[in-house]
């Protein structure tokens, strides 16, 4: 009884919702990446690995140069490189895209631990100075609005960037020529090819974009929310993003709604000190929600028709 009361009490605090949005954004970036990749017909479950790689290289670059912007760029590049591996393997060599994705995730986990030992010795990479972190920005004026000001206008810079990217992704996918072509390639690559669209170029572009976005999310995690890198610090968020993408029926705003739900679970867990429920139980919350979603309780969602199918030119 008191536990429910605690949660209800928690739900009316602005802190909780501020944390929810931040946690949701962390998931939203790779979810947008996955949406773009799968809309072009390449199944991408490698967001976890791309995020983790981005987080590591973001921290490493920030420790070296003390510049969060440069570090974020490096993180995105690292994510994009991992994505390129997935692209070459699954587009060029038509390998199984699930297997390739799993391989990248395992590879990323191993690579980052290996590099920690190589570069920094042992397990500790050291901490990034406060001044070299991605800054929190309070929007002048708006941040003073009661409740909403704290939730929406006292956030990390990446949160604002991600919200812009959310709108941008939606517009590109559903309002532009490029988006029409991306979706055409994901639905029926033969039709796109015969219409003179370069299927391979679109797919490469889409997969690499998913790497850039996942890398950005990794940077947000490591040098925005945290200030260091620890092994496996993404903690399955790439997979939760995958669930959000499916939950969102492969649309940016749908994915955002899903991310908010998962983010809320995360935020409740993070604030568990004031709830009298075992933190171990609460820590299951985001994953439990993911399982429920993936088990299809939210209704069947239909992926792009050619999702996961390699394109062989001239085939039927």
């Amino acid at each position, binding site marked *: 009884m008191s536990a429910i009361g605690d949660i209800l009490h928690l739900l009316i605090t602005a802190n909780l919702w501020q944390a929810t949005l931040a946690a949701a954004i962390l998931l939203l970036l790779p979810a947008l990446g996955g949406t773009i990749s799968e809309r072009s017909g390449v199944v991408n479950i490698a967001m976890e690995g791309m995020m983790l790689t981005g987080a590591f290289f973001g921290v490493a670059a920030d420790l070296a140069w003390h510049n969060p912007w440069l570090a974020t760029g490096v993180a995105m590049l690292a994510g994009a490189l991992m994505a390129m591996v997935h692209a070459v393997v699954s587009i060029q060599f038509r390998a199984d895209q699930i297997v390739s994705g799993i391989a990248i995730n395992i590879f990323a986990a191993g690579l980052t631990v290996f590099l920690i030992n190589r570069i920094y010795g042992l397990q500790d990479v050291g901490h990034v100075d406060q001044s070299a972190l991605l800054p929190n920005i309070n929007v002048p004026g708006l941040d003073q609005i009661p409740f909403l000001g704290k939730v929406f206008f006292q956030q990390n810079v990446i949160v604002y960037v991600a919200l812009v990217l959310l709108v941008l992704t939606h517009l*590109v996918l559903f*309002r*532009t*020529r*490029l*988006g*029409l*072509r991306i*979706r*055409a390639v994901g*639905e*029926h690559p*033969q*039709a*796109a*090819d*015969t*219409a*003179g*669209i370069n299927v391979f170029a679109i797919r490469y572009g889409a997969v690499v974009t998913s790497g850039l976005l996942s890398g950005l999310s990794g940077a947000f995690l490591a040098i925005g929310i945290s200030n260091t890198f620890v092994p496996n610090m993404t903690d399955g968020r790439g997979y939760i993003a995958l669930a959000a993408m499916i939950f969102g029926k492969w649309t940016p705003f749908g994915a955002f709604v899903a991310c908010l739900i998962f983010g809320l679970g995360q935020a409740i867990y993070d604030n568990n000190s004031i709830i009298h429920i075992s933190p171990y139980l609460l820590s299951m919350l985001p994953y439990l929600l993911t399982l429920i979603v993936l088990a299809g309780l939210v209704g069947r969602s239909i992926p792009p*028709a050619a999702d996961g199918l390699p394109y062989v*030119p*001239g085939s*039927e």
Partner: protein
Amino acid sequence: MNEQAGLAVEMRGITKQFPGVLANNEVDFSVRRGEIHALVGENGAGKSTLMNILYGLVHPDSGEILINGKTVQIAGPRDAIGLGIGMVHQHFMLIPVFSVGENIMLGREPATGPDFYDRARARKAIAELTKRYGLALDPDARMGDLPVGLQQRAEIVKVLYRGADILILDEPTGVLTPQESKDLFAVLRDLVKGGKTIIFISHKLKEVLEISDRITVMRRGKVVGHLITKDTNEEEIATLMVGRAVLLRVDKSPAKPGGVALAVENLTANSDQSVPALKGASFELRYGEILGIAGVEGNGQSELMEVLAGTRRATGGQVLLAGRDITTMDANTERDAGVAFIPEDRRGTGLVLSFSIAENSILGRERTPTFSWRHFVLNLIAIRNWALKLVKEFDIRTPSIEVAVRNLSGGNQQKVIVAREIGTNPKVLLAAQPTRGVDIGAIEFIHRQIVRERDNGAAVLLVSAELDEVRSLSDRVAVMYEGRIVSIEPPDTPEERLGLLMTGGGSSPSMGRRPAGPEGLEA
């Protein structure tokens, strides 16, 4: 060569080797400007490869291509489009979840601002095109909601939008009703009048004779004949295509119908989408006759066959096999009762593609005492002998019975199914699309087998999308429309009348009325 100025397309010495197959062997092919040129040949003759080369989807090993007299390099569809070549593919290159407009525009979309898709301009461009060529289309309809005839029309408009002067149509009538085919031909004639050149790929000889000016015949990767349409006939083309004289008409004696084998009464069933597809079909099938079901695909024929075969559950009505109620029997029990089924989807439900011919030849009968010991251990020797017998008897062309059926040609795959189903001397044979995608030579053979079964006293129910096949093979024709048998006609009923009945016209009874054929089905 002296006529070069008048040639829209000239392909010289085209050779293309695929692993294990010489798809095109020194092929010379030329099309005059403003003509309808038919390219005919059996499956695997190399027609599609040749056209894919012309459209840039496949690159030849050697040979050259001239468009309007100029040598060109075609590296991809973009180059082909740039040269004014457009292709309407056999399997439509359409995206069902996109609108008609988006499908037509794809690849050459009008844009506004940074890169925004300009719906208004797209709509205007389509309206102009459809008006100029008299091809009415709603640009905002969802493509997947349109009937195939209109989808094909969208494909043609798509090609015209790209400024094509040379149109390649790959088996364009395969999915059309007779009326839709007629409409298509009218459109094609108009296009030629408007200065377009058309290459028409087909294996339906009647159509080729009706629509084309000249004909090129291919067999096994080579051009084996150039014909002028008005100076040739079906037999000559068929002989060139197959390489031997072919019997185009089915040679059969009048049926000697016996007692009622299947009595179907008010049968209803749902489609895969759980909507009623079979809405009260009633008919009788007698021993020793072939009853053909004519109908536009998707009017409940597939569901009817599956219910009769026991692979789909009926929602109402009754099926009597020689007086015994078999409505709710599963496939296995039906087989035991003597019902054999040639399913329409040979690769999906007819065969296990990765299994050998021998294994496929006993599918569904693997538990019978002939092929197994106590339903449990396969009797490999018996299976082997059985498969060898079928391969010989049904002329299945294969190096051995251990070959995976995946590696057989479509015609030989179909023969495996036909052999398996007919090989057990069934009482009732359900044949759905028994010759779809099968070569003329194999069609002739399968038709003979079906007629032989009838003459042996079996009751045959035939469903085919090819009206010609239904008319030539059947002893009676039942027309199916919207899940009901709307009429029973003699096989020599004019195509026009059948076409009308198939689309809900003619003397078809209105909703709810019981069908009564001219032959008086009610015994």
